[in-house]
């Protein structure tokens, strides 16, 4: 049991969670993605509240496992993972840092306008949509008409 005095602060836990890569898009972390909603100590148990991106996203169970593995490796052995559906996850919760990392990685970050602002490779705004859906539930397929490269766009929801 972690004694109350030397149990890690919630800030410390957030920092650890910020080091866990998203299993599908390893360029960004779980906290960049905005799916960790709350971290709280209840007595000697650490409660981490996670919201799913898409209800059927197969990464959800893997994400829970990675959180558990990471926090256990930091000595937390009483852990309660809670799923929270409401308010439903929105791409507005993605951090600015996360948006930048996505773009560098080659995925156009979500835009309120509903489509990518620029090609993540050449920066052109001469773009076309190939499909509303992509390789994971959270992405759509677009193509740049200038450099002709297809790219993933992180859907805005």
């Amino acid at each position, binding site marked *: 049991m972690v004694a109350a005095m030397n149990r890690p602060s919630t800030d410390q836990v957030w920092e650890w969670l910020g080091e866990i890569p998203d299993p599908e898009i390893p360029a960004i972390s779980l906290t960049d993605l905005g799916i960790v909603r709350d971290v709280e100590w209840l007595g000697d148990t650490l409660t981490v509240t996670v919201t*799913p991106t*898409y*209800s*059927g*996203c*197969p990464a959800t169970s893997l994400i829970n496992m990675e959180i558990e593995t990471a926090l256990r490796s930091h000595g937390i052995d009483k852990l309660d993972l809670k799923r929270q*559906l*409401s*308010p*439903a996850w929105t791409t507005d919760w993605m951090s600015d840092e996360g948006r930048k990392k996505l773009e560098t990685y080659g995925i156009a970050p979500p835009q309120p306008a509903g489509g990518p602002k620029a090609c993540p490779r050449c920066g052109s705004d001469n773009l076309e949509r*190939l*499909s*509303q*859906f*992509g*390789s994971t*539930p959270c992405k759509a*397929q677009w193509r740049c008409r200038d450099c002709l490269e297809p790219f993933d766009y992180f*859907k805005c*929801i």
Partner: protein
Amino acid sequence: MAKQDRTTLTEFLLRMGDNTLILGHRVSEWCGHAPVLEEDIALANTALDLIGQTQLWLGYAAEVQGEGKTADDLAFLRDAWDFRNVLLVELPNGDFGQTLMRQFLFDAWSSILMPRLATSSDTRVAEIAEKAAKEISYHVERSADTVVGLGDGTEESHTRMQAALDYLYPYVGEFFLSDAGDAAIAAAGIAPDPASLRAEYDDFLDRVMAKATLTLPEDRFTHHGGRNGEMHTEHLGHILTQMQWLQRAYPGNTW
């Protein structure tokens, strides 16, 4: 919760979850077979969202039922007569156009119902609906666009889409049939009376079919018997043999 209320709520949740389960399974049959890669991925993603929603609806149904079952038990260990989905979702895929027409007819209903469920008096129902509504608004955008694209497309695609509409339309009326259970659910503020969604649905279909240059059948006759479990089509049993064979052959087996 009183026993009667629990039974009524379970029935409502099974109707919601069985619709998404059976349609999700049907749509997943396209995986690896769609006409182009982008459509294959779109269909698989749609199926995935529907199965995700199923986990939420049937997970809650199992809890309310209170017999210690899980969403998986409900999906894999019930037989055809215990399913409560509307007949529309168990109909065969047909060609790509027929699949997308069926998807649109379902998405249109779902996109009207879900925002109303998001204000349900039952917190869990409201939370599930809030989550699902986002996914459904994305689905209906695509299915409506595709119905318009193919309906107002070539002579061949137009003919196929009209045939799909003529075949499927006599099944949509089942969405709006109300029974005593629906009345109790509506009275408790859990969900609107199914019949109350019809006007908005008709209006939506009129707009999309006009753009798609397709003609809605005038006859309002509807097949029914799925959502009350009286009589499913012969297709449901075939779906279940494929969907459930592993749990039937190797009971309790896990991934």
